[in-house]
């Protein structure tokens, strides 16, 4: 309970409510469940009060006041339902609609449009305006991702404020003035931002829409599935919107601790990679140099027989885009069934890892007083939404230092610093630790680090021991360590199992590795879409894309989050089922029927994950 002086009590529509000083009338009313209509106001942006939709009556104030911009005061009496307020709401909507084309039947926003909804709820019902409407450009390409309809725009400034306050890029501006005002980029140049998809989500009308989703679906026809973005290790929460069993778009699903409600365009617009827009072939076995279609049991039996022949000289590579459940089984297949220690999920570099790499949770960046981004833009490129968190932190007074060298990072942070964070990509992990150690001796406060790993489940792959030298839970493998991928061509490996779970985090073979693949007795490729590796494979096992399966993913900060099946692909075996069938063909006897049952065993092997189990539903579990 805060001190009484920090609290303000006011009345909204006759009901008393106590809120912290500085709260806006809009938010105080929201606390009571009283909905005041808005267009320009946005909870993550400073108020501008340009749309006038939220006008309400405040006793002793002569005119109606914008609820989105007026802070509460002690004893304030607010009325949101009077005839005068209703008359103004009708008036504002009537003005907003004067030049609005009302082309809702062909507008992508129709059905989820605040202007449409609020016109229905608060509007005048009919227009009295029978003059010619003002005409502006329609379907203006703002970039290769966004199309702008200038007639639909109601000039709420949300998108321009996003580029100013949220991303800091200031790409969009209000050009010209008065009735001629339009939204645009400088000199009509294509927008470059990687956060443009967010503009379409905050636009309260159909002015800014995604080219990818253009005329794809009506919102009420969409099936919505909560999931996690497959793009990078950030772990942004998404919603898979699908229609007729096809992905229509990815939308944000606000998780204040992770994405703060935003997505980057790499993630948001990545869905065509996961679209099953055609059949991707059945399981197949190479016979006389050609891949021949077979059934799953035949392909599984062939794979198991070949792996068994290789035994401990088999190696396994699993994508950091696979789920924890799949990775756990993959790891068991090699360590337990084949007794092979040669496991990896990495590409070329050999990056070490340990649990301290997740010492700084994403949301805690805001609570630091100094943050060093070692590598600058390369860290942002690896996890773009991180930039929005850093920009927000900077606006709230956190000193963010983007440096290339350890020395510069050390010099940037003063000795008085109390809470310091270090961010770096996995490639610069060693430097990040050096910097962290040097900072620990320099500053009086704490220093934590967060390493941006590769792939949406790169952290899970490390946690679960898809590494040659560490078992599940970073268990040290005294004397039983395998060889890393980079050394496989010279390590006497006879069979290679590639689980290429995601088109965004592929095996990515080098020329030398492809030559090596050609020389191997056995190459087994488990993948979603046909890939270059098929050409080298002796067994091809088609699996599912991430929207087609369920399970958990562990983000770079160690947050275990659930993905759910949004697209039905029942005719394709689930990837964990393929892995289990291969192991069982070698006598493993695994009994799993669902991914949840795998998770239960996984949590026993890696106790940190037990806290994330659905039953407890807390700590690392980010599912909401």
């Amino acid at each position, binding site marked *: 309970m805060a001190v009484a002086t920090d609290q303000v009590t006011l009345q909204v529509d006759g009901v008393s409510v106590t809120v912290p000083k500085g709260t806006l009338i809009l938010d105080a009313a929201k606390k009571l469940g009283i909905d005041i209509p808005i267009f320009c106001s946005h909870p993550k942006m400073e108020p501008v009060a340009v749309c006038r939709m939220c006008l309400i009556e405040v006793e002793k104030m002569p005119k109606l006041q914008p609820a989105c911009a007026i802070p509460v005061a002690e004893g304030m009496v607010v009325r949101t339902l009077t005839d005068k307020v209703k008359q103004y709401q009708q008036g504002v909507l009537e003005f907003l609609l004067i030049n609005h084309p009302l082309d809702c039947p062909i507008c992508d926003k129709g059905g989820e449009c605040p202007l449409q909804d609020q016109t229905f709820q608060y509007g005048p019902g009919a227009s009295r305006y029978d003059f010619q409407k003002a005409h502006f450009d329609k379907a203006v390409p703002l970039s290769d991702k966004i199309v702008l309809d200038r007639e639909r725009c109601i000039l709420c400034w949300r998108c321009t404020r996003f*580029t100013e306050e949220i991303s800091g*890029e*200031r*790409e*969009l*501006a*209000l*050009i*010209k*003035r008065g009735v001629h005002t339009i939204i*645009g*980029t*400088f*000199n009509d140049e294509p927008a470059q931002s990687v956060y443009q998809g967010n503009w379409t989500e905050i636009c309260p009308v159909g002015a800014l829409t995604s080219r990818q989703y253009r005329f794809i679906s009506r919102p009420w026809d969409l099936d919505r599935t909560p999931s996690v973005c497959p793009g990078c290790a950030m772990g942004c929460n998404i919603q898979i919107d699908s229609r007729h069993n096809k992905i229509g778009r990815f939308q944000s699903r606000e998780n204040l601790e992770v994405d703060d409600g935003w997505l980057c365009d790499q993630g948001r617009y990545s869905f065509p990679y996961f679209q099953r827009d055609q059949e991707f072939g059945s399981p197949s076995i190479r016979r006389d140099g050609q891949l021949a279609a077979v059934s799953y049991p035949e392909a599984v039996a062939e794979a198991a027989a070949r792996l068994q022949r290789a035994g401990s000289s088999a190696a396994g590579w699993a994508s950091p885009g696979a789920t924890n459940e799949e990775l756990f089984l993959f790891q068991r297949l090699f360590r337990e069934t084949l007794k092979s220690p040669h496991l990896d999920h990495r590409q070329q570099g050999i990056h070490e890892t340990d649990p301290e790499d997740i010492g700084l949770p994403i949301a805690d960046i805001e609570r630091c007083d100094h943050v060093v981004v070692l590598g600058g833009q390369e860290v942002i490129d690896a996890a773009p939404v991180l930039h929005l968190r850093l920009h927000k932190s900077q606006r709230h007074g956190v000193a963010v230092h983007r440096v290339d060298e350890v020395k510069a990072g050390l010099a940037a942070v003063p000795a008085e610093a109390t809470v310091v964070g270090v961010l770096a990509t996995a490639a610069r992990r060693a430097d990040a630790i050096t910097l962290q150690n040097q900072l620990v001796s320099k500053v009086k406060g704490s220093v934590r680090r967060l390493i941006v790993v590769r792939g949406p489940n790169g952290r899970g792959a490390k946690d679960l021991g898809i590494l040659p030298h560490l078992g599940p839970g970073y268990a040290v493998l005294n004397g039983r360590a395998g060889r890393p991928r980079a050394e496989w061509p010279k390590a006497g490996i006879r069979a290679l199992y590639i689980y290429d779970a995601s088109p965004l985090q592929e095996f990515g073979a080098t020329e030398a590795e492809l030559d090596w693949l050609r020389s191997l007795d056995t190459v087994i490729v488990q993948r979603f879409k046909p890939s270059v590796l098929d050409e080298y494979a002796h067994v091809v096992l088609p699996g599912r894309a991430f929207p087609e399966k369920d399970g958990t993913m562990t983000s770079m900060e160690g947050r275990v989050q659930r993905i759910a099946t949004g697209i039905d692909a029942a005719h394709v075996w689930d990837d964990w089922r393929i892995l289990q069938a291969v192991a069982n063909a070698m006598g493993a006897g695994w009994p799993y029927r669902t991914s949840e049952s795998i998770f239960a065993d996984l949590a026993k092997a890696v106790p940190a994950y037990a806290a994330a189990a659905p039953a407890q539903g807390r700590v690392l579990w980010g599912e909401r």
Partner: protein
Amino acid sequence: MSLSQATVEKIQDYARRYPSAQSAILPALWAVQHEVGYVTSDGMREVAQHLGLPASLVEATSSFYSMYLTRPEGRHDAVMCVNVACALRGAEELFAYCEQRLGIRDGQTTSDGAITLRSTIECLGACGGAPMMQIDHRFEEDLTPERVNAIFERLRTEPAPSPEPPRPAAVPPTPTPAAKAAPKRPAGGSRPREKKADT
């Protein structure tokens, strides 16, 4: 195309005069317009670079104001006020006369590139001398067809006005020697004045 060293220095000088570089956008844009003749997108980009501001903000500012030109215009800018006081004193008829005399319509430039004629301006605050027009940076008041003829004749041969950006508010305005020397109310009724600094 890039701006001359002199213009760049002027812009940098404006940037130093204000606590916020944003305040220097207007005078910096004037400097561009005086050098190039209008506000080019390259010019806006350079202003943004020199002031350390996003280019979109510079365009937002320049497009807000009607006195920044967005395309090349004549050597001289003739803008006639047709607001209420001037209109009552026959400005609209006089503007039609100007159009006929120059053989161009509102917003166009004479074929010799000497004069751009416009009536798209709001009251210039010289109602006492209505009808009036602004020639480059000077007011011409108490206009008659004869006086308009004389002005246009003069402009046909006169070179473009020298770059004379309005002084930013931080510096107290000092009248130019020409303005000082000019009689307050010359016999012909013309009263040249320096244009106000604000847009």
